[in-house]
């Protein structure tokens, strides 16, 4: 019987013992959940899992051809999915992203500038860098490109009621990409403003406008582990005037 604390997390010793069984899917569903909760906090166990992945991949690599007919069914299913079709951008707007992957030296902001013509510019003395918004047809590609950067981590933006209202991707370069934002548009006299919480003080990262899509920020080398979004007058403010409408914590 696994040992869990009151929050349902498995203790390190038990989780470590189960890592082998976990990585080859030989644990029960409740154990899998408990181990994954532990892995989110334990770099040592996470490292062991990552180390063993390639070996497991080789163990799993049986090879051989797929039987005829499966591809036709896959193609049929993805073309029949109304949800996918509804959000599919037009063919001609598909943009070339592989350059981003090929050049790890490029930060996402720089790569987006290259590929999409997105300009990164200073807004005010408090603001570091803010990427201007891009067309919605490119947002999915940008979000994916950001996620595919080595070391990228995605975090949920949550409302005060705990509802997920968007997501951020934090990159090793210090850039932060707002990859989705589901809150309602504001009047033209207002804007969403993004803040990094550094040493318990809010530092403005920039203005999102009244109808945000994908945007890129830079933390300017500061170690920010929390981000907040507030609603402010259209010109932005030096300090928040109200409570956050969304927050994200980077663990």
């Amino acid at each position, binding site marked *: 019987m696994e040992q869990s604390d009151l929050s349902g997390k498995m203790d390190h010793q038990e989780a470590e013992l189960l890592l*082998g*069984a976990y990585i080859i899917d030989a644990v029960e569903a409740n154990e899998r959940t408990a181990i994954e909760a532990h892995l989110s906090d334990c770099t040592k166990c996470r490292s062991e899992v990552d180390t063993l992945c390639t070996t*497991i991949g080789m163990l799993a*690599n049986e*090879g051989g051809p*797929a039987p005829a007919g499966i591809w036709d069914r896959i193609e049929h299913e993805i073309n029949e999915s109304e949800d996918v079709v509804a959000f599919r951008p037009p063919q001609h707007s598909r943009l070339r992203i592989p350059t981003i992957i090929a050049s790890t030296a490029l930060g996402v902001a720089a790569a987006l500038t290259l590929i999409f013509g997105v300009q990164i510019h200073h807004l005010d003395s408090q603001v570091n860098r803010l990427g201007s918004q891009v067309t919605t047809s490119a947002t999915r590609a940008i979000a994916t490109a950001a996620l595919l950067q080595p070391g990228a981590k995605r975090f949920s933006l949550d409302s005060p009621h705990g509802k997920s209202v968007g997501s951020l991707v934090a990159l090793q370069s210090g850039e932060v990409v707002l990859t989705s934002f589901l809150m309602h548009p504001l009047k033209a006299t207002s804007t969403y403003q993004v803040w990094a919480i550094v040493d318990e003080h809010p530092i403005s990262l920039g203005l999102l406008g009244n109808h945000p899509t994908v945007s890129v920020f830079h933390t300017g080398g500061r170690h920010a582990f929390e981000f907040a979004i507030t609603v402010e007058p259209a010109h932005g403010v030096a300090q928040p005037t109200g409570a956050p409408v969304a927050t994200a914590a980077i663990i």
Partner: protein
Amino acid sequence: MSQESIQPPAPRRRKSTEPQLHEMSDASLVVAVARYNQDALAEIFRRHGGAVHALAKRVTRDQALAEEVTQELFVRLWNEPERYDPARGTLRTFLLMQTHRRSVDVIRSEEARRRREQNESASIAATSYDIDHEFGDLADREAIREAFKILPQDERRAIELAFYHGLTYREVAQRLEQPEGTVKTRIRTGLRRMNEALVSWKVVET
């Protein structure tokens, strides 16, 4: 069992400025999938569909279930390409680990379990080590075969029953009539031992 080779889906409508799909890296193909490039998904299927299906078949021991798992995996990659993180391993490893997990989940459902047990009830009990079973890539096959060989019999047996037959460590313990803790340790120790061997042979990187 149908073992017809699938013909790679024919390339369609390509701009002359785009790189040929067969020349693109897996990571670039995933990015193209994120841009709803269906031909890129077809190319990924051409590269890895056989391995995905073979593993699903090996674990589920059911042709129909294996095809369902294969279809589900590639549809999921189409819908959620961002789940693949190239920093954490190759696309094939990612797909195979997803395939294994899904296959295990499928066979643990009661209905699937009944079907599988009808098909294979005797064979598990009588199974000898599957080391000689066909593995895919030749170099990988040889390396993993050698890595398996260095394991003590108890570790090898525990890993084989858990990985290829989809048993939990508890089920493995019951089948081998060994304590659960012993089986947990043997699985982990055996995998680490195999990994260390593959690293020392420079088959995998640290």
